[in-house]
């Protein structure tokens, strides 16, 4: 195999054939373009609601006085809860079970009287106690209780008439308001490009090798560098197309605010180079198409979940964080977020250098071990 020669016309011919094969295979088009979009829509919708989450809260007012009504009104005014009134005659526990409520606030019968005593000139009496009837097995109830306590603390402080002694002022390290979707979209771009590049390279090459097409190609002037570059460029074209679609949906549906600059192209290109190269190596090392695909799975899944695609790496235990930092996808994720969310060019450069070095090593290794012919020994 002639290693050194690159033929632009041959690469172009390969790209044309690959693109024609792509758009004539409708299921491939769907999975390549629509699948990442579906992920963005699903996760985006879930987490958009989390950013502005309004909790359902059931309140059973056993006192039914002006004071208890004022309290319910104050909680409602916090705009964190959508309140449902529970009849005073109902058994609260049974109501919670029957109606799948994970938190019911019960205002006791002597609420107004206790409040008067506490707020009177003598200020005597124990604090007025509300009952929080909750289901500990319910996901998210702790957060709801936390928010409720925060709202009640605010009401307490306001009723006492004294200004707070300590307040905190949140200052973001980012230049603008940041939502989960803006964290999520760069991660999905990195992941979608990785999976498509890795599986694209593995599936196409393993199939062509098994069918003997690569053997036929080895009797033409195509060189192995032509072949790998054809694979990389074809995957890059699809990656750009897929990224554009993902961004259009993100802007159109979620009105994301992301920095679009040259770094995006750089990271998409490095993502493609790294994982097409890795795919070529797997195709060569694995004997059968099935084992090549299985090895690609084994590499892809840890990267998908541990590289910070779906949630920040900082949420993971220390040892997993260390592991994440040896995964190439981590640097694509970090680099894309640095450039698209934080507009931190130095951080993006640092990530680009690391993933760039990885891409070069994998690409060179891919060229060295790829064979177009059927010779295995």
């Amino acid at each position, binding site marked *: 195999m002639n290693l050194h020669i690159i033929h632009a016309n041959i690469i172009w011919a390969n790209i044309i054939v690959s693109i024609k094969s792509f758009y*004539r295979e409708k299921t491939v088009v769907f999975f390549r373009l629509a699948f990442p979009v579906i992920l963005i829509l699903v996760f985006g919708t879930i987490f958009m609601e989390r950013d502005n989450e309004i909790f359902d809260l059931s309140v059973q007012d056993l006192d039914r006085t002006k004071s208890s009504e004022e309290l319910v009104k104050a909680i409602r005014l916090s705009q964190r809860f959508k309140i449902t009134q529970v009849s005073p005659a109902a058994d609260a526990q049974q109501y919670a079970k029957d109606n799948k409520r994970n938190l019911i606030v019960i205002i006791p019968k002597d609420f107004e009287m206790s409040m008067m005593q506490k707020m009177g000139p003598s200020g005597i009496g124990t604090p007025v106690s509300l009952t929080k009837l909750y289901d500990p097995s319910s996901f998210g109830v702790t957060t709801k209780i936390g928010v409720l306590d925060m709202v009640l603390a605010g009401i307490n402080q306001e009723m006492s008439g004294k200004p707070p002694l300590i307040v905190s002022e949140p200052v973001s390290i980012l230049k603008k308001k940041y939502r989960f979707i803006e964290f999520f979209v760069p991660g999905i771009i990195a992941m979608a490009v990785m999976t498509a590049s890795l599986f694209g390279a593995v599936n196409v090459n393993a199939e062509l090798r098994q069918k003997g097409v690569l053997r036929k190609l*080895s009797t033409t002037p195509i060189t192995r560098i032509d072949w790998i570059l054809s694979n990389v460029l074809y995957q890059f074209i699809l990656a750009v197309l897929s990224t554009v679609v993902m961004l259009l949906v993100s802007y159109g549906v979620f009105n994301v605010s992301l920095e679009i600059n040259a770094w995006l192209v750089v990271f998409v290109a490095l993502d493609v180079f790294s994982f097409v190269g890795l795919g070529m190596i797997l195709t060569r090392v694995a004997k059968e198409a099935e084992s090549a695909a299985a090895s690609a799975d084994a590499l892809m899944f840890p990267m998908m979940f541990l590289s910070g695609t779906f949630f920040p790496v900082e949420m993971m235990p220390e040892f997993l964080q260390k592991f994440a930092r040896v995964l190439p996808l981590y640097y694509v994720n970090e680099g894309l977020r640095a450039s698209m969310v934080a507009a931190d060019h130095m951080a993006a450069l640092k990530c680009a250098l690391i993933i760039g070095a990885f891409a070069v090593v994998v690409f060179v290794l891919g060229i060295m071990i790829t064979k177009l012919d059927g010779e295995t020994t």
Partner: protein
Amino acid sequence: MTQNSEYAIEVNNLTKRYKGLSAVDNISFTVKRGEVFALLGPNGAGKTTTVEIIDTIRKPTSGKVTLLGMDVTKKKYKIIPRIGVLPQGFSSFDRITVKETLQYYSRLFCRRKTDINGLIELVNLKDKVKVQYKNLSGGLKQRLGIAVALVNDPEIVFLDEPTTGLDPRARRAVWDVLLGLKKKGKTVFLTTHYMEEAELLADTVAIVAKGKITAMGPPGELIENNANYLVIMLKSVDEKVFEIVKKMGFSPVYDSHGYIRVRLDHTDDVRRMLTAVKDGGASFTGLDVRKPNLEEVFLKLTDEALPEGSVGIKEAE
């Protein structure tokens, strides 16, 4: 040897070993320019390994192969534009049409003036130009493979078992294409395990078995030198016929069609045998006397199994 030598291919002491086993065992031969050369042998004989070394797909363990005056192990990229190859089990891109496939391979050879329509006509795929590869039948795929092997107007065409797995009709259609190539004066290197194919198409046949060439020459000459006898075929339901022939000292065998097949060394033996059958009170319903074909030569030289049907050796696994 110079590039203007009368030989298109020169193979000297070629050996290929896999894990100590010789797939090709020290073979030598030459192929003249413009001739159709057939490597004939059963599956596993070493035909594909030999052709794949000559057409630069594989590397030899030892020996030297010269193609158009160039060493195949050193000048692969100079040789490739001058040869066309139909590898065994040719396959192409599923979703690409017949015409696009030819355009693609033509681009790989950087040829701007390939007569794609002429090639399509040559392999008789005119009404299939817009059909995607995966929707072609086996015979049509092979014909497309032959056209692909010709996109660069090669000086030598290598066809590795071009008709294997095809039904008789598709096989004959491929033969028509190959006869067309022969007429055009192309050097064709063919491997096959079909006797009839080699006999019909080849100027020179090399019979290969267990990695070695056991005989080589024009088909007529091979038959003359290796099978100078007659074959008589008797169709009979009378078992006495077989016994009478056997008693006369001949070695009759039943073939797969139920014919009694007898090899006779002299023309006189035909008359003697028929008289003996008649005198013995036996009868037969069919009689065929013919000169041996390449099949008999092959059987004699290789001790291989009897062929299935009249066109070739039983297909091995």
